[in-house]
């Protein structure tokens, strides 16, 4: 028995070591990025592992201007806010009513929404650029925000649809008898009850829209409208392999909002991700 306990202890230490090494490997690129973002390009060339002689904060000042940080951040936030608001509002209404209405018509529309899960974005992007141009939503942050509503709403409908089943029907039936209007009933009584799934939907869609690259690349042509990712990617395209100090500083800056968001709301984010995946 004593031998077994020692063996178990050894196994536990081994597991810890494996996890520790994996954690170091995971953080290594981020650490190297942060470290070298404070160096001169000469220092990066000569000693990539060492601490900088003097912290080059001006790398960040340069990157701040070159990627038009505030403007890019504002654009990203606006696009995300429009997409998110539309998805939450429209999907909660549709998901609720589809879940509450029996019958073939309701089932048909639910099926139509589900259909989209099979369609890869790359299969519709070519025609989407054309439609966006015709509807004049191409080229503007507002327009791009509305595109995200269309692309994201169906999965959110699916999640709301499942969640509404857990809310007792007596509640809305009693309210209807009181003569409460359908929309008023939904927004005052039902919508607050949907909060857990609204949080899941908000987190999933926020991360998706904020980190999406291809759709903004296809839709935004004017640099004034660029998102954080487009600006950073453009900076990389301009300076390529020559000026890693500036590029790394811009990468760190571009990912700071997401990392801050993650460290603050970690518990909810991980729960949201797990719920979204398991119910999807």
């Amino acid at each position, binding site marked *: 028995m004593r031998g077994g306990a020692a063996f178990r202890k050894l*196994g*536990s230490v081994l*597991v*810890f070591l494996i*996890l520790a090494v*994996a*954690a170091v490997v*995971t*953080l290594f*690129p*981020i650490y*190297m990025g942060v470290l*070298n973002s404070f160096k001169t390009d000469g220092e990066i060339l000569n000693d*990539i*592992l060492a601490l900088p002689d003097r912290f080059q904060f001006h790398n960040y000042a340069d990157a701040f201007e070159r990627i038009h940080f505030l403007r890019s951040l504002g654009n990203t936030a606006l696009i995300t806010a429009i997409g998110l608001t*539309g998805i939450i509002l429209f999907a909660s*209404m549709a998901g*609720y*009513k589809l879940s509450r209405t029996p019958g073939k018509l*309701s089932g048909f*529309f639910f099926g*139509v*929404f589900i259909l*989209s899960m*099979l*369609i*890869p*974005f*790359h*299969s*519709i*992007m*070519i*025609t*989407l650029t*054309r*439609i966006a141009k015709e*509807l004049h939503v191409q080229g503007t942050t507002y327009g791009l925000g*509305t595109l995200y*509503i*269309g*692309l994201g709403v*169906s999965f959110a409908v699916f999640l709301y649809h499942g969640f509404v089943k857990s809310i007792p029907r007596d509640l809305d039936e009693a309210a209807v008898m009181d003569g409460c209007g*359908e929309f008023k009933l*939904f927004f005052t009584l039902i919508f607050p009850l949907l909060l857990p799934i609204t949080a899941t939907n908000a987190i999933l869609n926020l991360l998706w829209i904020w*980190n999406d*690259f*291809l759709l903004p690349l296809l839709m935004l042509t004017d640099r004034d409208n660029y998102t954080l*990712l487009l600006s*950073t*990617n453009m900076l990389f395209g301009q300076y390529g392999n020559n000026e*890693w100090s500036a*590029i790394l500083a811009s990468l760190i800056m571009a*990912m700071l909002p997401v990392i801050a*968001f993650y460290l603050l709301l*970690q518990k909810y984010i*991980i729960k949201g991700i*797990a719920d979204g*995946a*398991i119910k999807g």
Partner: protein
Amino acid sequence: MAGKHFGKRTVILLAFILPALLFYTVFVLVPAFGGVWYSLTDWNGVNPAYHLVGFANYREALTNDDYFLDSIGFTLKYVVCMVVLQNALAILLAVFIESRRRTKSVFRTVFFMPNMISLIIGGIMWLFIFTKVLPYLAVHTGMSFLDQSWIGDPKLSFIAILILSLWAGVGYLMVIYIAALQNVPDHLNEAAAIDGANAWQNFRYITMPMIMPAVTIGIFLTLNGSFKVFEAVFALTNGGPGRATQVIALNIFDEAFHNSFRYGYASAKAMILFLIVMLLTFVQLAVMKRREVEA
């Protein structure tokens, strides 16, 4: 009276779903059906006039377009590696993390973090690692195997793309597997311990069968996601050297927006991607469903 009631309910239903349906129809359904239509034409995206060409685009893509066929092959290789490696690593990390007490949440935080970062940013950061840091380490620490042309040599850039994708994606599946592990009843593990099962036997006969539903989800997500891989490749190699690491999505993107602007032809390729993803999804779901029933 009943008819009138039914009519009113239908109107209310339509009123509630109309906004969602409108956006969804215009930005997803119409482009999807439009894509099918354009794939049968020689539309070049600029010229308003185009002609129906039947299945000529499909025939050309599947018989005459080596770059496209290579991109399918390359993507398949990537998908197989990702499905196996990503799920295996995620299960391993989840099981290990769940066995910790005090360090559990720290490790979970660390391993999930890359998932929060855009693949474009992560990709450029890894490009720095592959082109600058690893060659430096090889020269100065004696780990000479690191001195490779990670981005220039197609074989190695495949590995580089895998490393980036795993770095970014494992944490996501790990979270799903952790949730599944937490649902395994304690008394099963306790009973196994009393029967003298070792860690491996416990994993093999208790843990794995209990988390099989999560494995289905994990494989489904990886399969679906890695077939559509785009950003990891775009950021790291942009399909190069030459077109050696071009994936299907990048091939479509280049065809439509960079090389030829043959929208009709690119739409046909996009439909082929759609059909592949759909077919694989159905096959995989059918197989996994059957296995779950047997187990």
